[in-house]
């Protein structure tokens, strides 16, 4: 496969310029009353979606920004991001 990723700054580039940064799980939870289960859920647990998922990427050999894309994990192809996301 030859993954390509669209960086919001640099455009569509070879996937090897980037580093994967995990499933999109939302901002860091508040520390107060964060029990071990909830902590573990945020830090370690994945949905392992076989299909389109929103995920983080870092343009390591490029501009150095973190951003999310939609990618189909069953084809390894980037999907176009819908404008209005719920």
């Amino acid at each position, binding site marked *: 496969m030859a993954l390509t990723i669209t960086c919001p700054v640099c455009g569509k580039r070879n996937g090897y310029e980037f580093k994967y940064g995990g499933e999109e799980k939302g901002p860091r939870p508040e520390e107060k009353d964060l029990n071990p289960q909830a902590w573990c859920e945020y830090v370690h647990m994945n*949905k392992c979606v076989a299909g389109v998922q929103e*995920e983080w990427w870092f343009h390591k050999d490029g501009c150095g920004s973190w951003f999310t894309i939609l990618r189909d*994990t069953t*084809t390894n192809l980037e999907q176009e991001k819908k404008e209005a996301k719920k």
Partner: protein
Amino acid sequence: MIFKSKPLWGEKTKLKSSYDVVIIGGGLHSLATAYYLAKEHGITDIAIIEKNYIGFGGAGRNTAIVRANQRTQHNVPLYKEALDLWPVLTKELDYNLMFNNCGNLNLMHSEAAMKAARMTIATAQFHGVESHLIDAKEAKELVPALNISENITFPIHGAMFHPPGGIVRHDAVVWGLAKGAAKNGVEIHQHTEALGIETKNNKVCSVTTSEGKINTRQVLISAGGYSAALIHDMLGIKLPISVLTIQAMVTQPLKPLLDHVVSSGAYHCYANQTLKGEVATGAHMDPWPNYTTLNTAHYIKHQAEALSEFLPCLRGVRFMRIWGGLADMTPDMAPIMDGNNQVEGFFMDCGWGYFGFKSCSAVGKYMAQFMATDQCPDIFKPFALKRYEEHRLMGETAALVNYTPDN
């Protein structure tokens, strides 16, 4: 004649509406568990549900290396038992699993690596597993093709030599276990897809498949790389797993050249020669999750570069075939084996990454015990899912893993 023309794993039968045990996935861990359930525990009313054909996934895509030189004391005994089981299974199943006990040579490219190797070797020796640290010259005596000169990217300092390891013919294990399981009454349903698991009062009650609904009290998901997604989709249980594609390839067949499995962490590469004479090599994973089993241009090139350095004679050999399989990686490179914890009657056996082949026999044996008795065997206890929230990662890897953001 030796050859009997009977289907190896039984005639095709129709799926029944109820079984004592349903196992989702037709790979090695499933087949081994079913085999031991039937043989050791007299539980024979078992259906193995496989979406494709048995051995379609990791079971048929690994490079068949077996060894018991893991890093921690929780893992070594399990893999040791698995290693000891190959000759036993060959006999029991009356099927030649072609265990080539050629030994594994794990190259070390720095003082730090030599130190790490000492710990692994001491751990092996402490558990009665043979493993030795040897220097570069000794390594070259074992593998004359090795380049032990200084002018390569990662000069070889020495190696961890593990004589009890080797290679097993992976397809033979699939077919042999299927044969053994079927002989004991296990039904193998190929081209049947598991669609859901139904629970009542947090207890397993049935499994829905493409061929109908099955009532059952116990279900095991051991579907290799597909386990995590299935477990999440069917039961809503999230796992600390990232599913990555791992690649391997073979060269054209050669007369005997490599007598041992050679591997190198620094080069991300292993190589061994199959009985057919092909040099099988691989190791790399693209560090992002995906369910494709596609290979990459990037990797085959990398592999050639790596081998060109430490086994330079292979520059004159041709790559013939490259393929990919799935590895379900956990943050601590150790599997998750659990049961009756999240849902009563639900068992899981996943997160094996690229160790699923070498462990299948022993895991099948203990998973069968677990399911038959509803008591978790001691050897499985450290592998429960809860370890992640208890901050008790297994330590199978010394360094931080690079396929999660968590480094």
